[in-house]
């Protein structure tokens, strides 16, 4: 599926890294040629009238747990970095190579190589061979690597390969079997809980080791005030540290778990309201680099269980865009930054030529009506499972059209 005819999308609000401009965008051979107010369709172009809606880069979702094409396309996602927590784990070049080709042509899946064999946190996996096979980064998976010696050697190796290391920031020994954040809600519900400081402990160590190794560190989810403070401080020191978050942690606090609803069972668990406010502040002040869906569809066999027995995770690909546009409406961020958080920065971390409206980059485009209202309804979801904690909530922002490499998806 290659782009056979040049495409011009006219009459659009173009969300570029420099700002929102009215105009048109032309692409051919799968890459963006030019855009702006002075660009017009040329002879032989296929023409799409955007009718004044937003034309944005397709979202680059950094850190999903399943390849779920219908959900990604519903949510405007054209590239997804897949976590290595698959069955079996992505710890061999052959598995990585297979996954790297699996979504093409209409979805590009960028596998993240398992940092250690079977994600056990002990022996390094064949990272260079996996990079050769198409891995765009390295991830520790759902867990933290407890052994600081292993972690340092991993970071040194990743620095040599110039691959980003995506970590999970929870001190596993402190967390144990906990499924909630220690505090009033967990105490009232009687849920096994761990202190929120488990995150800060993990981040502090990983930043120290990354500084030592000179490695690029991306903490996939930072969810506590202390955690953001550590990342802020590391950035001020000039370390190549970045961090992300998923909408659940800036939309919900542990109060949402009060009826034992397992769709709110997440990893890390939902935090207290003060931490949620800290997350919003960190998104606003630039501490947060990436907002990802953390897409992790879970069926009833994993979720229709008592809270502590259910598996963590939420299906988030369909709601990511609407939740981020909510931040724009609330004045937390502007439109340009919204798409840097969800497309530009993730693409740069992965080193893929996409994620922004820039001439020469892949023509992965989304046409978006940022105000279109809809109700999130788990019964109508495109994802392979319906575990959305935002079920029955109103949302605004829908994808009207999606192009991958200049080719329109879904007709």
């Amino acid at each position: 599926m290659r782009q056979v005819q040049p495409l011009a999308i006219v009459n659009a609000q173009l969300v570029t890294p420099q700002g929102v401009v009215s105009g048109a965008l032309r692409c051919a051979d799968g890459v963006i040629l030019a855009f702006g107010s002075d660009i017009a369709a040329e002879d032989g172009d296929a023409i799409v009238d955007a009718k004044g809606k937003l034309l944005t880069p397709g979202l680059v979702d950094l850190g999903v747990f399943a390849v779920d094409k219908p959900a990604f396309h519903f949510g405007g996602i054209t590239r997804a970095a897949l976590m290595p927590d698959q069955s079996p784990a992505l710890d061999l070049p052959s598995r990585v190579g297979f996954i790297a080709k699996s979504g093409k042509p209409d979805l590009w899946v960028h596998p993240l190589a398992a940092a250690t064999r079977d994600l056990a946190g002990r022996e390094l996996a064949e990272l260079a061979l996996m990079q050769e096979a198409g891995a765009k980064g390295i991830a520790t998976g759902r867990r933290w690597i407890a052994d600081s010696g292993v972690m340092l050697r991993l970071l040194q190796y990743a620095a040599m390969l110039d691959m980003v290391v995506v970590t999970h920031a929870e001190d596993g020994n402190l967390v144990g079997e906990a499924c909630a954040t220690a505090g009033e809600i967990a105490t009232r519900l009687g849920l096994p809980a761990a202190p929120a400081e488990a995150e800060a402990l993990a981040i502090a160590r990983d930043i120290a080791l990354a500084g030592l190794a000179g490695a690029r560190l991306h903490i996939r989810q930072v969810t506590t005030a202390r955690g953001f403070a550590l990342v802020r401080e590391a950035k001020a020191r000039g370390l190549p540290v970045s961090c992300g978050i998923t909408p659940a942690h800036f939309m919900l606090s542990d109060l949402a778990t009060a009826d034992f609803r397992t769709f709110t069972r997440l990893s890390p668990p939902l935090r207290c309201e003060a931490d949620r406010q800290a997350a919003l502040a960190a998104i606003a002040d630039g501490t947060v680099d990436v907002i990802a869906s953390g897409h992790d569809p879970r069926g009833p066999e994993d979720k229709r269980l008592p809270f502590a027995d259910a598996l963590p995770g939420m299906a988030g690909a369909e709601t990511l865009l609407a939740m981020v546009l909510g931040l724009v409406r609330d004045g937390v961020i502007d439109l340009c930054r919204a798409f840097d958080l969800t497309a530009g920065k993730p693409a740069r971390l992965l080193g893929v030529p996409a994620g922004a409206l820039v001439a020469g980059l892949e023509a992965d485009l989304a046409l978006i009506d940022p105000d279109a209202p809809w109700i999130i309804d788990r019964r109508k979801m495109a994802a392979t499972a319906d575990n959305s904690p935002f079920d029955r909530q109103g949302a605004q922002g829908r994808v009207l059209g999606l192009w991958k490499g200049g080719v329109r998806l879904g007709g």
Partner: protein
Amino acid sequence: MGLSGEPASTKGVALMATSDPHHAAGRFPAGRLAFAHRDLTGIGHLQRHEILYLLHEAEQWVALNRQRTKHSDLLAGLTIINAFFENSTRTLLSFEIAGKRLGADVVNMHAAQSSVKKGETLIDTAITLNAMRADAIVIRHGSSGATRLIADKVDCPVLNAGDGQHEHPTQALLDALTLRHALAERGEGAEDFTGLNVVICGDILHSRVARSNILCLTALGARVRVCAPPALMPAGVEAMGVEVHHNFDAALDGAEVVMMLRLQSERMSGQFIPSPREYRHLYGLTTKRLALARPDALVMHPGPMNRGVEIDSEVADLAGRSLITRQVEMGVAIRMACLDILTRGARGVEGWA
């Protein structure tokens, strides 16, 4: 309305020593409004007047249980399933006796022998029990919130007999009933516990009994102190309206009631206490320590006790002060009251449809 549909308070029981139905009629809202819940999954859902109503309704069963013939046909023809996914002897027995004394057909399902071990999910088990047309299901489960989960999937009332570290409502109710009787006997009888100083000491973190008792006692006006080593004290528990102590001696000062809890080693991953000997040194209720409380302080324990660890035998068996066996007695009455009230809708009792 059939014979079995007469109001419980006038049925079968001749001696109404401690409760007066006419008084009750004015005291509590009529019919279903007195207890507006299909299930009993926790004290946290209950209003103060609903707790008092349950206690009031239990009085008649206390009286019945002290007769030679301890039987009523109130629940004749109904099936009660005791589904215990966690091992239990005393609570299961108490619920079984309660159901049988009310004339119901009681069936016990033990998790150890059930299909849960074969990988069946909890909800499938619940649906299976529901399909057998139980009229009430009593559930104990090792995971917090499990009872609520089942209650949402079945058509009959569900009673929580303990879910994980969440709640154990009938234990808190029986403790309140025990306490009310004991206080009445010494001439300090009142409907609730306004101003009463209660200390709960032990493994608060893992204890559903502690959570239910905190909710119940504070709802009835008591001042509750909780005492545990820091590792066994849940974060933010003071938000539940209790005073937090780590020094048992200090916590006992002025205490009128001392509730001791067992160390729940089966729920502990890792070491919380260096040794039982050391635990007794800091938190064991000895005769010497009991002397730090009010001179007539009452001693309670939900059982099973670890004598010589959290409580010494001399204290556990202290006549007139230890209410531990009385708690067991009141347990049957409370469970009878709960089964009666929750099945009133199904039995077509007037005002409860």
